[in-house]
């Protein structure tokens, strides 16, 4: 990879109880590119994302070893404030979890975490972020309504907007379009391609076509291992490993 890596993962192993879930992961995520993590269901994509965000801390049964280096610091045993660390990374979880408050407050919650905006500015920002995720037109007349009333697809976009509002450097997106129709998916995809100017994006998907549309780099995982990684061109046009070839041919999902 000729780009400067933003995240370096070295010899990462993760165990849940006695199960070895992530097996010796070594990879580098380039700065300001879209890196797609591709792989069949259950291969450990979500778990890998949670590691990068230290959400694994919440589970007593999870043990990790190895290194995840972000900005020259191993975040797996850092003295840094974990909240500060997490602010650097917006995580979109596979299932959207809006906060128990109004649509407007869902976005402003993120804005208020690390910035002291004035009320007027917050209003402008909320509108800006909602427009960015193509949700504004649907909700502009009901901003004070609880977010719980939105449809799942709308919630997914709301969570994306909320994640952007924290102003992260890295976006970890775990199948952010899984509940969206093709048209809205495409809007979000285009958004990601646009966002890579300013953000480092890690995008989990198992939709092959989506991966082809947005990926600069691809990491292919299978059963907790990284099988192959490289630029989108290398992986899609010229896969070297048999597993990758058969996955790309659609022999398994």
């Amino acid at each position: 990879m000729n780009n400067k890596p933003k995240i370096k993962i070295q010899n990462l192993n993760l165990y849940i109880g006695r199960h070895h879930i992530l097996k010796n992961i070594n990879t580098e995520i380039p700065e300001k590119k879209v890196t797609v993590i591709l792989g069949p269901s259950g291969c450990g994509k979500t778990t890998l994302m949670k590691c990068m965000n230290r959400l694994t801390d919440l589970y007593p049964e999870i043990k990790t070893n190895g290194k995840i280096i972000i900005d020259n610091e191993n975040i797996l045993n850092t003295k840094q404030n974990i909240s500060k660390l997490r602010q650097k990374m917006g995580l979109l979880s596979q299932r959207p979890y809006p906060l128990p408050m109004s649509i407007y407050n869902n976005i402003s919650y993120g804005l208020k975490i690390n910035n002291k905006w004035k009320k007027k500015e917050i209003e402008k920002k909320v509108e800006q972020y909602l427009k960015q995720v193509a949700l504004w037109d649907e909700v502009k007349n009901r901003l004070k309504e609880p977010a719980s009333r939105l449809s799942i697809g709308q919630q997914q976009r709301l969570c994306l907007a909320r994640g952007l509002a924290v102003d992260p450097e890295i976006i970890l997106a775990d199948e952010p379009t899984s509940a969206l129709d093709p048209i809205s998916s495409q809007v979000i995809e285009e958004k990601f391609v646009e966002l890579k100017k300013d953000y480092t994006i890690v995008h989990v998907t198992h939709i092959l076509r989506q991966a082809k549309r947005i990926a600069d780099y691809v990491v292919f995982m299978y059963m907790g291992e990284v099988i192959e990684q490289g630029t989108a061109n290398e992986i899609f046009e010229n896969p070297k490993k048999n597993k990758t070839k058969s996955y790309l041919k659609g022999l398994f999902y």
Partner: protein
Amino acid sequence: MSKFKLIEEKFFRVLMFLATCLIAFALCLIIFSILYKGIPSISWEMLTQTPKGGFYFGKEGGILNAIIGSLYLSIGATFLAFIIGLPVALYMNIFLIKHKKLINIIRFFLDLLWGVPSIVYGAFGFTMMIFFGIKTSLLAGIIVVTLFIIPIMVRAIDEVLKTVPIGLLESSLSLGSTKSETAYRVFFKQCIPGIITAVLLSFGRAIGDAASVLFTTGYTDHIPTSLSQPTATLPLSIFFQLTSPIPEVQNRAYASAVVLTVIILIISILSRIFSKKFQKNQINF
């Protein structure tokens, strides 16, 4: 096979129906007998006056001292227990989430404390009061009742917080908010309706309990004007009137029970209305 299932289904349905009827019947019977004996003895005078001389022998007066005393006591204790209990429950569910064993031990002990009869709390309070040389008073009562309802408060809130999926915790934390922010701005908001129920449950226990206040609040015919004065409570007032040999006084005991029931009813309805207002923001999973 399918015929057996059908019979099984019917059998259990009938069983559940009968159990429900039995409980409903028992409840109705209790409420009916309280109302039947109590309502004829309720008078405006009874609700607005303190006992006059000879009240407990059927003479004039009312139970205003006990009504006010009970409200002071249980509102004070519920408030204190909430102030202490909410942070404890939030701490258990957010900060201790990695220590499942520890949480379970805490839950176990809280459940034990929940089961300890309130007379034991009363006796404990009394011993403490003798030790520190404190007289029977509203304050002593409030402290003992607070101790007595804290396990109830904590466990009831804890049960509500337990239902919050870890995904909500994850998504709030991954925005970079701290655990305390998550506790008070996300978990608390999500659980307000359930927390109101928990407060109500504790309040019900506080206002209805006689044994814990038996030694600690004392008993007086006056409405207390400071925390250091003794106070009457409704359950004790009911107890004293009920043990009287005079039928008129016994009926007044039932009237007092009606008052107690109505207070709890009013508080329940108010909190229902209140919690509806917050329900709309709740995320359903």
